């Protein structure tokens, strides 16, 4: 009975769903000649999506059919990659059919995709996953002259509704869209949510219910390609997107709900429950490791340090392991695991120590602050970290790192929403962000000018705090001495130099780590002597602002994600008998998003240059963009003029 219903459902769905689509095709879509593309859509575009129709047909909580049929005209070499087919699949997603056609500029069929030429490969070696069930089918048509058009049809059966496909028809700002269409259908007895982002004003939406099935369609068209505006992403996406989520879903035999963050968190909690038993020896070890600790932070730090030393990151994401952790016992015994496994292992160790901890799902990545939409519960996570509530302050731990201190999250997961998974369900909370007083770089440089030497000895004393030390921490904690030496001889901006000695100290606290760098370098090329003058250039410290290149007028806000401060001081000690011809002037630049001050003082035979740049995180209007550019250029111009000029001619005259 159930089967029959499903069958009739899908036949009906297909018929109904194809109705609007065939109407949509009839007019002009079957004409794939390039001349049919409106001129506006070819402007600055490298490829034109002639049509893209996607059908998401949800049959039950454990099955959906996915069909995508689309044609893309490739206009030039830069657009080639949009014509390549690349489709991932795995244990849950099976590709049931692939068809492909190649048309010339006149829309004449040239070639059909041959099944035997479709490349099929495992994703092993393409990323850092050791083992998984994900594979890729790919195909490329080759055609000697532009433009040409490729058309593909892919049919898939997906045995889960845990993650529904997203719809982002404009794959890149380099493509324009002639027409795109999404159809979503599902039984009226279930709840499937959708959310639109940045959809064009002229979106055509349809919504009806026939025979207990809900059909929704979206049609958009005439979207031009555009120049991306860097630092402008303030929302979840930067192109028209619809995301979908099924309130009641199934994942490999596990039923769950995501009608709220609470229920979705509960599902994740229950899926991973009861996997925290440890061998007896490990339990005894835990107690001996923390026997002298008085605070929760100390205990967490000691157990975390033990785990960091004794485990490594190995991701086995095969099948359900992609979502459910390996049990703590096996991670403990084998000494490796993925983010879930290592997080669960530390959680289990903490439990033995009497400390409660909650795995927290996160969308990790240095630039993915806004990926989670707090108002739309869905499976949009790619990583997990551990949250340990403490009476004074919450302790966050990145379990896949072998270097970080307990309590500090680097740029990978800081300052964003995460889903705490607890026995009471999920809670959406934010990870810590680092303000200027924590997120800073402080450089002190001392140069004692020796006018008889070619190379000058420069002493550097630098402090890197919080996010400023992220990349360095990893290198310093992992590189052997010879590689460290190579690295330090490349990291500074001097024209040519050799570091003669250096040392690093790790200081600060667990929650805001700090690296102290002490280095002495022999530097060439920043002092030029002529007959009359000596130029000492002090402009080799890099501009603290990011260079943003945009050639079209700014229409979007400028988004600065981080608060930070960079302070520099350069002390130049001159021989007593020199005459200073000129020193750089003072500068002060002030904008809502940042301030920059630079001061130069002469004190006896010393020149002291100090500068401070402070950036205020925030979303600023498009008009601030010009100021940002102005400020960037002003600081660059300053760098060029950062010369202390000594006059040697006077001295020569005196000598004579």
């Amino acid at each position: 009975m159930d089967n029959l219903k499903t069958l009739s459902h899908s036949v009906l769905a297909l018929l109904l769903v194809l109705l609007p689509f065939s109407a949509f095709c009839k007019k002009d879509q079957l004409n794939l000649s390039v001349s049919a593309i409106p001129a506006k859509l070819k402007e600055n575009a490298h490829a034109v999506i002639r049509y893209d129709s996607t059908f998401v047909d949800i049959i039950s909580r454990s099955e959906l059919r996915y069909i995508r049929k689309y044609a893309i005209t490739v206009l030039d070499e830069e657009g080639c990659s949009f014509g390549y087919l690349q489709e991932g699949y795995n244990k849950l997603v099976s590709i049931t059919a692939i068809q492909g056609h190649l048309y010339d500029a006149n829309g004449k069929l040239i070639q059909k995709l041959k099944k035997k030429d479709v490349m099929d490969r495992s994703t092993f070696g393409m990323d850092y996953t050791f083992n998984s069930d994900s594979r890729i089918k790919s195909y490329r048509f080759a055609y000697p002259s532009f433009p040409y058009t490729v058309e593909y049809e892919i049919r898939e059966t997906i045995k889960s509704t845990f993650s529904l496909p997203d719809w982002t028809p404009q794959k890149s700002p380099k493509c324009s869209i002639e027409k795109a269409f999404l159809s979503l259908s599902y039984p009226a007895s279930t709840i499937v949510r959708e959310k639109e982002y940045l959809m064009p004003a002229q979106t055509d939406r349809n919504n009806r219910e026939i025979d207990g099935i809900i059909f929704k369609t979206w049609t958009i068209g005439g979207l031009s390609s555009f120049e991306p505006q860097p630092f402008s992403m303030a929302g979840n996406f930067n192109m028209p997107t619809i995301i979908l989520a099924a309130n009641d879903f199934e994942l490999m035999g596990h039923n769950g709900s995501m009608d709220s963050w609470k229920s979705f968190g509960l599902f994740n909690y229950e899926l991973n429950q009861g996997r925290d038993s440890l061998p007896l020896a490990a339990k005894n070890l835990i107690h001996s490791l923390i026997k002298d600790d008085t605070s929760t932070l100390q205990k967490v730090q000691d157990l975390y340090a033990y785990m960091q030393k004794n485990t490594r990151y190995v991701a086995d994401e095969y099948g359900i392991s992609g979502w459910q952790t390996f049990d703590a016992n096996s991670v403990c015994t084998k000494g490796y695991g993925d983010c879930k496994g290592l997080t669960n292992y530390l959680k289990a160790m903490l439990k033995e120590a009497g400390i409660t901890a909650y795995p927290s799902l996160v969308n990790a990545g240095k630039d993915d602050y806004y990926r989670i939409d707090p108002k739309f519960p869905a499976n949009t996570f790619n990583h997990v970290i551990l949250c340990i509530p403490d009476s004074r302050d919450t302790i966050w731990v990145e379990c896949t790192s072998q270097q970080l201190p307990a309590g500090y999250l680097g740029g990978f997961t800081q300052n964003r929403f995460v889903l705490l998974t607890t026995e009471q369900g999920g809670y959406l909370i934010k990870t810590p962000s680092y303000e200027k007083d924590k997120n800073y770089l402080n450089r002190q440089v001392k140069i004692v000018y020796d006018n008889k030497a070619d190379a000058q000895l420069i002493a550097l004393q630098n402090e890197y705090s919080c996010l400023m030390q992220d990349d360095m921490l990893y290198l310093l904690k992992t590189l052997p001495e010879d590689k460290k030496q190579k690295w330090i001889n490349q990291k500074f901006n001097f024209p040519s130099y050799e570091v003669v000695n250096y040392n690093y100290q790790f200081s600060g606290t667990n929650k805001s780590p700090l690296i102290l760098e002490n280095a002495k370098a022999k530097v060439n090329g920043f002092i030029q002597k002529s007959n009359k003058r000596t130029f000492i250039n002090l402009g080799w410290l890099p501009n603290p602002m990011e260079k943003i290149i945009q050639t079209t007028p700014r229409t979007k806000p400028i988004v600065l994600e981080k608060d930070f401060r960079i302070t520099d001081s350069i002390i130049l000690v001159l021989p007593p008998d020199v005459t200073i011809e000129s020193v750089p002037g003072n500068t002060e630049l002030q904008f809502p998003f940042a301030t920059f001050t630079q001061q130069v003082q002469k004190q006896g035979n010393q020149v002291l240059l100090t500068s401070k740049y402070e950036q205020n995180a925030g979303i600023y209007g498009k008009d601030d963009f010009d100021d940002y550019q102005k400020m960037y250029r002003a600081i660059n111009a300053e760098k060029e003029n950062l010369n202390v000029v000594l006059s040697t001619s006077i001295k020569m005259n005196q000598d004579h």
Partner: protein
Amino acid sequence: MVRFFTKNLFWIWVIVFQYPVIFLYAGTEDIIENADSIKAYLMMDNFSMDNNAEAIILYEKGNTFLQDNVLSYKVERTIKILSQNAVNQVGTVAVPTGSRTNIKKVSGITYNIENGETVIQKIDKADILKDKITRNISALKFNLPSLKAGSILHYSFTLEYFTFIGVPNWNFQHEYPVVFSEYQTSIPDYYIYTDLSRTSIPFIHVDKEKELNGQAAAVHVFTAKGPGNYNMLTTTWVRKNIPALRKEPFRLGDENYLERVKLHFTGIAPYKGSVIPLFKSWEQVTEQVLKDGDIFPQAYAGNGFLKDKVTALAPAKSSELEKATSIFSYVRNNFVLESNNDEHKVNLHHTFDTHTGNLQELNLLLTSMLRKAGLNSEPVILSTKPHEPLNSFFPNIQDANYIISKVRIDDKDYYLDASQKYLPFGILLPECYNGYCRIINEKGYSMNINPSHLADKNIILASLNVDQEKEKKLRLVMDVKYGNMTALGYRQIWKGDEQKAKKELRSLFNLGSFQLTSISVKNVSDPDKSLLIHYEAETELGDKNIIYLTAFFDPFFHQNPFTAVNRTFPVNLEYEYDYNYTLNFQVPDAYKIDEYPKQRILKFDSDLMYFQNLVDINENKNKFSLNSKFETHTTIFPVEEYTGLRSFFEQMIASQNERIVLIKSN
């Protein structure tokens, strides 16, 4: 009969090897069979042979046994881990295999010390996984358990191939230092293999197997009666205390330096005293691919289908060079390289009809068309960087991974590659300039294509004037003409997109107070013409009494490319540099030049590297001009010259940082 590997097939392997894993590494019978020695090594945390080592290969042994056309290859290694980095690098083992390869007897063990006791943990059978990567390539993969800094790991596996050619080569040297490395081959005497070894110490031939142990590099050969009507020849190489092979910039690929032994199949001896040489010489190999192969003969075939096109492209009355450039441009511009199509049978007629083909098809088609036009053109095979060049004594066509076309006009050879859209006539990709190559023709000549054939000639012309309209502004106009190699690099990124080019050039433009007012790019997609960039920029002149100006608006180097103070390997440049910069400066009326960059000539290694700054000042007209040049006339600098080379760059950069000083006149 001989399979020709193209670059793209190689690509799949690269992906497999790029997995952050060192496949093939295991241990020593000596150490793991002796509990005391294991314990002693577990307690060690420092090895005097290399204080920077993150791991030490204590023992490794390879064994190839060939019998009844089954080649069995056993590998085992024991590694002491010294850093957490090494845990991640060697703890995961992945062994790529072909579709017809059996993999057997896989084992992995970790040794740790806990409370003063040695703890042994074996890998679970269930944790040894197989991954079918593509139709033809699989991988066996596993993780050693409970690894940490201090652990010792041991693993071994045996691969079984159904073949009698292709006895594996053996590297004695790795990214980590090696204490002991042994390779043994046992081959029936009716197969003739020749070996070629490269070690820092020559192998000593010893008479008795046990004498191997006393030597740092020794080889022992032993013949015994085999099971059938033949003898087995067993050769054992032993090499001890080999330092790690470290990376350096401006260095040739690892293959060129690794200590190793290569084995080469050269013939068969069906019965005593008879030898049928098979791959004895390149001449023989060439003859074979032309006689029995079905690929190269197509370049020499009549190919009547080309006649009309060739006649149209290269009319009889045009010169040979005109004919060649016309045909070359036609193939390069109108044919597309199929990157995922190496499996099909080569058919030039089909290539010509569809205008698509892989590397060998396109360059063989080019050769064939040039020949059809009556020109002296031949295909050339080579091995690209970072691989070793083809070996002149070791003819192995499988070492060749690239094919080009050569045409000889008026006693001059031109090297052509029509598969790359942005290569001009007569220029190859930089990785092709890798020395020894073979011409596939009846006589089978060799030739060398060296980076010294290739100079990257960049010309920069800058002029600085007071703006005619806006008098308070100083205006910079700069024209840059890029050399072949720099232009190739840009064109491959820009892919004919002028907007992209401009955007990137804008982002690279950084001249302090000078603000870019316009930029234009010419010939982005036409490699036969020079890539030209035109910049215009301006800055406020202001009203200062003294102005300091840069004289080098596009310095040859901003930072010294030779950052390391010490050097282990010779410096190899990809091509010869040739930079030329001229500045013409009409000094504003209100100012006069007080100082300018010093006239200077730097020479290194006689004239092999040369830098000059020449200045000319005309005080009457208040004009200043400067010409700066940098040229290299070699691409190789021995280690002993490194300090001098580094200092040469240091001085050149310092010289280009010198300023012009203007002071207000009167």
